[in-house]
């Protein structure tokens, strides 16, 4: 699975290096929960996460945009697990009214989770405390965003967004719980920074 992680990084590197100026950055904080998607909106208790990513456009039209995102994230689900993830999404943005846009994103990520409690491993007929090497999962996702550009005619303007994201962890617990569904509610901002160097 470590090889898969390296392959994912390699696959994403042209995206990162090939990005034209200016560089959009999206930062969000989110609440994650194990839940059946679309049955709940805001869940408690809050299990916090943070995500940082960027985007590049595939196609831009007057009222719409097809784009690719790449992201890194971290979440802490109290009593259960914490995870570090990397992934990419194919997104479609549609201008609804003035600076208001709606988005849909299909994503595929890789997440490595670690238990948040001491883990005991069965070895040589007894349980011993050993270092937690974590568990690797694929995290396909579907996100629906409502966002607002602060300057309505400028696609590089700062944008605030609310994202309702569902993702599943697979494999979760082989032969026991094959898939675990999550709802993530993000609140974030997308802004652009000017890159000083020349394009790769």
């Amino acid at each position: 699975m470590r090889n898969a992680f390296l392959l994912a990084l390699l696959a994403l590197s042209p995206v990162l290096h090939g990005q034209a100026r200016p560089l959009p950055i999206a930062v969000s904080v989110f609440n994650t929960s194990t839940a059946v998607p679309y049955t709940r909106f805001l869940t408690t208790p809050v299990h916090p996460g943070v995500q940082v990513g960027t985007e590049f456009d595939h196609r831009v039209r007057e009222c719409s945009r097809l784009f690719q995102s790449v992201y890194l994230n971290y979440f802490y689900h109290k009593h259960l697990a914490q995870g570090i993830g990397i992934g990419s999404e194919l997104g479609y943005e549609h201008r609804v009214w003035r600076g208001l846009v709606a988005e849909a994103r299909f994503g595929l990520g890789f997440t490595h989770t670690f238990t948040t409690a001491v883990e005991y491993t069965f070895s040589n007929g007894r349980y011993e405390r050993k270092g937690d090497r974590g568990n690797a999962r694929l995290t396909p996702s579907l996100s629906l965003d409502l966002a607002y550009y602060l300057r309505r005619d400028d696609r590089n303007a700062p944008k605030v967004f609310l994202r309702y994201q569902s993702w599943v962890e697979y494999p979760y617990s082989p032969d026991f719980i094959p898939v675990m569904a999550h709802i993530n509610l993000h609140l974030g901002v997308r802004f652009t920074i000017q890159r000083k160097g020349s394009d790769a």
Partner: protein
Amino acid sequence: MHRKILLLACALVLGSCRKGEDMPATFYDCQYSHTDSSAANPEGGAYQAVLDDMVSSGVVGVTMSVYHAGTGMWTGAAGMADLHNGVPMKACNRSRMGSTVKTFTATAVMMLAEDGLIDLDDRIASYLSGDVIDRIENADRATIRQLLQHSSGIYNYIQSTAFQTASLNDLVREWGPYDLLAYAYGKDAYFEPGTDVRYSNTGYIMLGMLIEQVTGKPFHQVFAERIFQPLGLGMTRFAASDPVPDGIVRGYVDLYSNLQVIESTYFSGWDHYTADGGLISNPYDMSVFLRALMNGELINAASLAEMLTWRTESAPDPEFFPIAYGLGIFKIETPQGTAYMHSGDAIGYYANMLHFPDDGTTVVYAVNSNYGKIDAFVSTREAMERILAGTR
């Protein structure tokens, strides 16, 4: 800069690990005594081998009682009660017994019927009202007997994916009866009342409410007054008054099916306040209870005969023994003979009690670990056959 970010990320991941509680070994001392003839039991070595085999397979800890009319009671243990503090399991240690409480609930209901306070063929709607009846399909027509026998057709809230993910999302939440029943609201019933049998925790929550409605007391107080205390079950209690009492062994779950367990002692909050779970006991006390029930010491012969009137399910689980449903108890055919039984799960705990009516042999075992790969060593048909082969 990159190194600082990496160090920060590592500190975040490594520093957020929840440690176990420090407990002295005396925390697990047992506060009861009985005449223990286990050491002199000629079969003791064979019984202990069963427990040792379970632990060497991946069970964290196990306690067991085996009663034979000829050799009396044997109790034993293997493995660990507490991994963090390195405390070995003792035979007397108390553990969560999960759904085995349903046999206690059924016994209490049978007592109320003997008292003339209810009739088993009364509709539950004659005693309960509101959302419990109005929003749960079949609840308006189901009888007390059908709830006891799982023949009401009422949806089992534990089967709800929404409930399962919600309980995982808040592992230390404590759930009241209405919180749990809400997951059965609006759900289709499995079948018309009385036409089949299918396990339903929802029905047993309603039976707990029935006991409270009829007696005016918390159902677990009725258990204590009419079952625990008369039988002298000193290590038995219901979770509601103290969900994690002193001396309870730590629970562990193999959540990711890799025999890497984490502690779950505080994770069974849906199992604390309702009559479908929540029992805390040890195999000795459970054996005393089951034999007293079967010997007619708790309810009369007519009531016991009603409890032991069986219905079979139309769609048995092909991976388990075919089950015949009585009132709060099941009948299975094992290679060792016919057994009356009930098992129970909580998060990190499993228990099973079996009584063989042909000779009165009673086997009870409790483990402080479950889910994932561990279930194959404690609760599957193959596991039960292996355990029973060594005890009978």
